């Protein structure tokens, strides 16, 4: 039996069409795009074409796009880059308490190096409190960074309003759009953002490539110094096949995003209802409607997440506890704690994230398998007494 893959928020399979587009750039058009001879023009033109595709999708100018190696690099580049470039102006950064670790730990790092950071609280659905944001702003505030949608609970933030507040106060605004770009509309002008992070492998592009949108005029110090690539904002010989793949993935997303968002939202809501109908003492985490079309995050009372995942794996269902990168950690998710879950409940959460290939049949299969797993684990749990 094939795996039922419900961890698209962790990573997606590279679309075969994307891989196809990349292939000529490995050993046919392999020229270094920065070289002067004519054979390099093919790779140079190809990455500029990809840049245009990404820019168009965002409503941006190609010159405002910098290719990077990942979502994490984008977040580090954005936050450290603005912090360094604007440190003469102030040393205060505002973020939310439910950011991805690439943002959170970058902020923690800056705290150790002379910056102060405000972590905004969120409501029980995972939405940043705008009044708290306004209160947090000081004359020292140089950067606001709030993610577009959360990777664990799927809640979509009021980015446009946050951007308005930032602009009104003359503060640079970054958003981590790694979970939204390619899945729901992301337009930098509609969202009032200055800097925006994208990661290829989250929407059927290749792993190891990302893009950072940097609005014209925004000051930012490079994270990777060296050669003149990317208009001197990110040194390194360009990852040509990766960039071409990213461009192709954006192109495909442009075509299918709308219909997929509708289809997945419907599947998602049916799936949530079926789980909650079939299993007692379970709850949905995140906002019921302001959420990613593909995100389902459920807590099960009295049992622990990893043991649920292992049992799902035995049934050939791939899911996660929220964030793949911290799966070796003993701490429960900071996101689930932030929305008010107890440690115990937070430990018992599972994220199912749907994708383009996900079918109703697959989800039905999960709905059938899940109650037995929960029952078995609860039977051996000292914490579940019902």
């Amino acid at each position, binding site marked *: 039996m094939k795996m039922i893959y419900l961890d698209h928020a962790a990573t997606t399979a590279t679309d075969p069409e994307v891989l196809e587009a990349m292939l000529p750039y490995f050993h046919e058009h392999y020229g270094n795009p920065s070289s002067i001879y004519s054979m390099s023009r093919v790779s140079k033109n190809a990455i500029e074409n990809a840049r245009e595709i990404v820019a168009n999708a965002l409503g941006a100018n190609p010159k405002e796009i910098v290719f990077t190696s990942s979502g994490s690099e984008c977040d580090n580049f954005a936050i450290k880059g603005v912090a360094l470039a604007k440190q003469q102006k102030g040393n205060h950064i505002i973020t939310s308490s439910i950011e991805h670790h690439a943002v959170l730990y970058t902020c923690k790092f800056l705290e150790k190096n002379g910056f102060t950071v405000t972590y905004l609280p969120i409501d029980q659905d995972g939405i940043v409190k705008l009044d708290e944001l306004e209160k947090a702003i000081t004359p020292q505030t140089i950067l606001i960074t709030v993610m577009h949608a959360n990777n664990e609970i799927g809640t979509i933030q009021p980015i446009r309003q946050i951007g308005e507040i930032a602009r009104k106060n003359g503060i640079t605004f970054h958003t981590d759009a790694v979970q939204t770009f390619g899945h729901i509309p992301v337009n930098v002008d509609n969202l009032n953002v200055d800097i925006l992070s994208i990661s290829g492998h989250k929407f059927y592009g290749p792993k190891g490539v990302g893009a950072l949108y940097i609005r014209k005029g925004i000051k930012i110090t490079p994270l990777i110094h060296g050669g003149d690539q990317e208009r001197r904002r990110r040194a390194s010989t360009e990852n040509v096949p990766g960039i071409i793949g990213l461009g192709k993935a954006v192109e495909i997303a442009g075509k299918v995003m709308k219909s997929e968002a509708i289809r997945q939202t419907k599947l998602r809501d049916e799936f949530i209802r079926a789980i909650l109908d079939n299993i007692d003492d379970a709850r949905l985490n995140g906002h019921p409607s302001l959420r990613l079309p593909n995100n389902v995050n459920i807590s099960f009372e009295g*049992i*622990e997440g990893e*043991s649920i995942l*292992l049992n799902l794996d*035995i049934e050939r269902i791939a899911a996660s506890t929220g964030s793949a990168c911290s799966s070796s950690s*003993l701490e429960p998710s900071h996101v689930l704690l932030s929305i008010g879950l*107890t440690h115990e409940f937070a430990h018992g959460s599972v994220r199912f994230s749907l994708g383009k290939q996900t079918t109703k049949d697959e989800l039905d299969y999960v709905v059938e398998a899940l109650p037995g797993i929960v029952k078995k684990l609860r*039977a*051996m749990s*000292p914490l579940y007494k019902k």
Partner: protein
Amino acid sequence: MEPYSEKVMDHFRNPRNVGEIENPDGVGHVGNPMCGDVMEMYIKVKDNVIVDAKFKTFGCGAAIATSSMATELVIGKTIDEARQITNKVVAEALDGLPPVKMHCSNLAEEALEAAIKDYHQKQKKN
């Protein structure tokens, strides 16, 4: 994370000795739901020999497997022999644990210790 050994997965899939013992001679209750691990171990003792052991565990795969293995290891052992069952013994019996999961075997050792302590205290009272 490194994957679990086949032994761990076997004990996770089919945990031995799940449940509670009515009127146990000793109970150990260790761990903390905040940390994601709670273990309860029940023992029945006759003539200084552990004749039965059961567990209930809230926790990850390693927590469940180490609980299961620990109960298997103690059944039939004298109290003194059971005391030799350290976290290392349990982990080795499971063909090892991933480094980040070694604390789970500590938990099993502690649960056993606590159950034996409880047994001794009950003995004193009687």
